[in-house]
């Protein structure tokens, strides 16, 4: 086996040194009746070239070469090539969690820079070293709010990513944490009257997402005011990190739970991604996850260490702030490099292109179908209602190597034939125009079919 660095003679010599007759001696502690006396039924050992071929085949079966209008919590942005050049360095790729600070300063300093940039972008005072993803970060942020307020229940906007809400429901179920959901209004923003009614003296926090699942930017000021007046915290989930380049961050939030996938992390069929929690300094001791802090060595030289570990499971066990152990260090490094590349000016310009593409697409589609939720600002997604079933439209688009918007029926049946369309800087005008033409054709044939039915009905009448 090519990964194993021993010759038969090495193994012999080692067994001899140990005083074992054969390798079986070393497995003697396993009771004989349970030992496996056959080969595992897994595919035979493959050459590297065969492995590459096998996965190439899978890659071809997996939408390779399609233009996409999907967003909905996972965004297709350009990944500058130096991200992979740098994270492929073995010293980053094959290092462990930086417990031994003296030989982990590379990882530690890069996390410190990541924490700093997340603070700058979110307007928060502290950020952790990352969480599994945006969905679990949101659930952990809610539990953090419950610890901080000593209250139990949670109010969630229905416009939070449906799968994030499902994850929260799973986490909350056994914490004795009742959840109530607040609807959205005609402009997709949170219904403030309903919000006001939903908050009780037992509400630990209000969880919203902005831009929300429909791409609409929430009125953070108004929501924060209502929540804070009643002693509840405001937790804001951000699923599309690139929005931070041009959308004012929710500075009034108490906790921000982010998904940083948009910052240079491949779509990768859903993971690994990079969650982050950011908050105010006064709440840091209830924050889950790893934190890197600055300190000095014995000679007064600046250095970095993992810090405030007394919050964590390896010290506090069942009284820890969370069971989370590792974070998503390598993915956070991707995000870190991405943020460094685009920086202060580039991130804004990038976000502006997203805004422009989505605005153009919404305007073009709007000529032939109905763009829902006007009257509130959006980032790079919009909901499009059609007469035809969006699954059927998408089937037609697939013929043209285009993946259409995400049909919302599954999560929002009340919206009928509506799909969530996303445009990023990767979306070309040509693909927008093609998709618009196909939707227009589908709509006009649906319309004529409908009017034909009406004609027939009139004749019958």
């Amino acid at each position, binding site marked *: *086996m090519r990964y194993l660095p*021993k010759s038969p003679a090495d193994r012999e010599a080692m067994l001899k040194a*140990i*005083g074992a007759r054969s390798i079986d001696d070393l*497995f003697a*502690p396993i009771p004989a009746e349970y030992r496996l006396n056959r080969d*595992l*039924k897994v*595919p*035979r*050992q493959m050459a590297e070239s065969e*492995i590459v071929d*096998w996965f*190439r085949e899978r890659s071809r079966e997996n939408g390779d070469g399609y233009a996409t209008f999907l967003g*909905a919590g996972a965004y297709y942005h350009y990944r500058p090539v130096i991200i992979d*050049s740098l994270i492929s*360095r*073995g*010293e980053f790729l*094959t*290092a*462990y969690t930086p417990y031994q600070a*003296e030989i*982990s*300063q590379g990882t530690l300093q890069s996390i410190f*820079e990541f*924490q700093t*940039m997340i603070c*700058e972008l979110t307007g928060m005072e*502290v950020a952790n*070293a990352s969480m*599994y*993803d945006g969905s679990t970060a949101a659930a952990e942020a809610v539990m953090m709010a419950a610890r901080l307020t000593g209250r139990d229940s949670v109010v969630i906007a229905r416009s939070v990513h449906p799968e994030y809400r499902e994850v929260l429901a799973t*986490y909350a179920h*056994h914490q004795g944490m009742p959840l109530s959901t607040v609807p959205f209004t005609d402009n997709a923003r949170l219904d403030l009257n309903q919000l006001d009614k939903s908050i009780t003296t037992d509400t630990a926090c209000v969880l919203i997402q902005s831009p929300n699942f429909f791409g609409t930017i929430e009125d953070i000021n108004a929501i924060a005011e209502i929540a804070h007046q009643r002693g509840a915290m405001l937790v804001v989930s951000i699923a599309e990190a690139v929005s*931070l380049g041009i959308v*004012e961050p929710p500075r009034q939030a108490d906790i921000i739970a982010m998904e940083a996938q948009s910052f240079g992390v491949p779509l*990768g*069929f*859903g*993971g*690994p991604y990079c969650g982050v929690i950011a908050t105010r300094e006064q709440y840091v001791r209830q924050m889950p996850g790893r934190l890197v*802090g*600055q*300190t000095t060595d014995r000679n007064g*030289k600046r250095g970095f*260490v993992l810090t405030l570990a007394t919050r964590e499971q390896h010290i*506090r066990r069942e009284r820890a702030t*969370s*069971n989370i152990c590792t974070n998503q*260090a390598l993915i956070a490094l991707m995000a870190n*490099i991405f943020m460094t590349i685009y920086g*202060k000016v580039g991130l*804004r*310009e990038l976000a502006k292109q997203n*805004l*422009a593409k989505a*605005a153009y697409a919404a305007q073009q589609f709007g000529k032939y179908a109905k763009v829902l939720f006007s009257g509130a600002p*959006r980032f790079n997604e919009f909901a499009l209602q059609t007469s035809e079933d969006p699954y059927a439209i998408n089937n037609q688009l697939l013929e043209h190597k285009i993946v259409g918007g995400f049909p919302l029926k599954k999560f929002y049946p009340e919206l009928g034939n509506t799909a969530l369309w996303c445009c990023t800087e990767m979306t070309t005008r040509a693909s*927008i125009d093609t998709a618009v033409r196909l939707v227009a054709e589908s709509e006009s044939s649906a319309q004529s079919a409908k009017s034909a039915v009406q004609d027939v009905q009139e004749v019958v009448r």
Partner: protein
Amino acid sequence: MKHATPKATQHINQNEGLIFEKSSAGKAAWKLPPLDVPEVDTKELLGLSERKDLGQMPEVSEIEIIRHFTRLSTWNYAIDLGMYPLGSCTMKYNPRVNEVVSRLDGLANGHPYQPEKISQGALRILQTLSECLIEITGMDAITLQPAAGAHGELTGLLMVRAYHESKGAPRKKILIPDSAHGTNPATAAMVGYAVENLKSNARGMVDVAALASQMNEDVAALMLTNPNTLGVFEQEIYKIAEIMHAKGGLLYMDGANMNALVGKVRPGDFGVDLMHLNLHKTFSTPHGGGGPGSGPVAIKKMLQPFLPTPVVITKPDGSLGFDYNRPQSVGRVRAFYGNFGMFVRALAYTLANGPDGLRQTTEDAVLNANYIRKGLEGVYDLPYSTPTMHEVVFSDKLQAKKGVKTMDIAKRLIDYGFHPYTTAFPLIVPGALMIEPTESEPKEELDLFIDAMKSIAQEVEEDPQMVLDAPHTTRVSRLDEVAAARKPVLRWKPAQ
């Protein structure tokens, strides 16, 4: 240094400040293509929601970024540089073909919501890996959704709870041996269970008599790591399973040490009801400086209704798809389907090994640990003489007489060109030195390690202060962790 070390030589490496300290207005590492749609008036579109300023975000050029991160990387130790004997962490070689195949366009750019008909490649990967892991563990079904080992534990205990609820009551407690990872009790608490400690016996194994007396109808499950954190196989495992099952409890196995068993014995065959795997340990996906991990949970048939949604199914037409209609499911533990990129890597590793390679890998891991044990026995105190599987735990008892603790020895090991072993864990061994070489070490590297450890033991006798002051060769000396925690500085701020 008093003793020259054959493994490492000091060489120059570059200083590097924080990236913010290099920033100046007008530098850029990005370039966008010309906009092919009309420009927009951001103020008109966003109104009060428009952001005006990005604060202290850096402005630097591409070469500076390359140098910055390359310099930082040279300050890290890594498996690629040498033996990384962190016990319990399984720092094995991370094959590069895994990295290549995970970056193939259709896999790296696959959107989680793309239609199933153009997701057959990804679904096939999910299914093939699932089948391999089910066979390797001897279980009946699996979920790949959990994002890490601890997340797998959470998922597993959620299923335990749902299972008991379906039988009438969730029960109250989880039994956890005193040698367990901290994630075990922390997870139990998250799922609303009380934790009851289970004492180890004099051989470092579960005290079966104590288990029998502590087991009752209030206990939902026992969370057992096997081999345990001493690297000891629980020889009475089947008796343990029987005690649990007789009172309706479940046996959960923490699969952190599955690399000691693959191809030799299957947990499903010795009474385990559910277990998580750490793909970043046993299945070679890179640790990446602390993540991403991946923590699939394999289960026996009776737990199948409770698996998180969705699960991969074969549809009537033979194509693959996701099944969301699972009324008894514990729900979702993560958005989408888990850390897919890690599945690609773990499967590539499995294919590269095949059945013979997987077995040889396990044998070499156990051989290496026993070779180190033999080499260091007598030099360091071995608190449990029970046979060693994939890792060996010594204590600092002999060196502590000179005032030198496990962490000091660990820091001195850095000067010899090695990453330290795991210190002060498991908790049942005071001053533990937990050493796991994995199968990836050649005999020469193991010999260098043994020599280094012997040399340090000698230094402790001759010049303990020198060991206490270690490391002597790193770019920073021991860092003040107390100050870091007392007055946390968690981000850079510009000088006022």
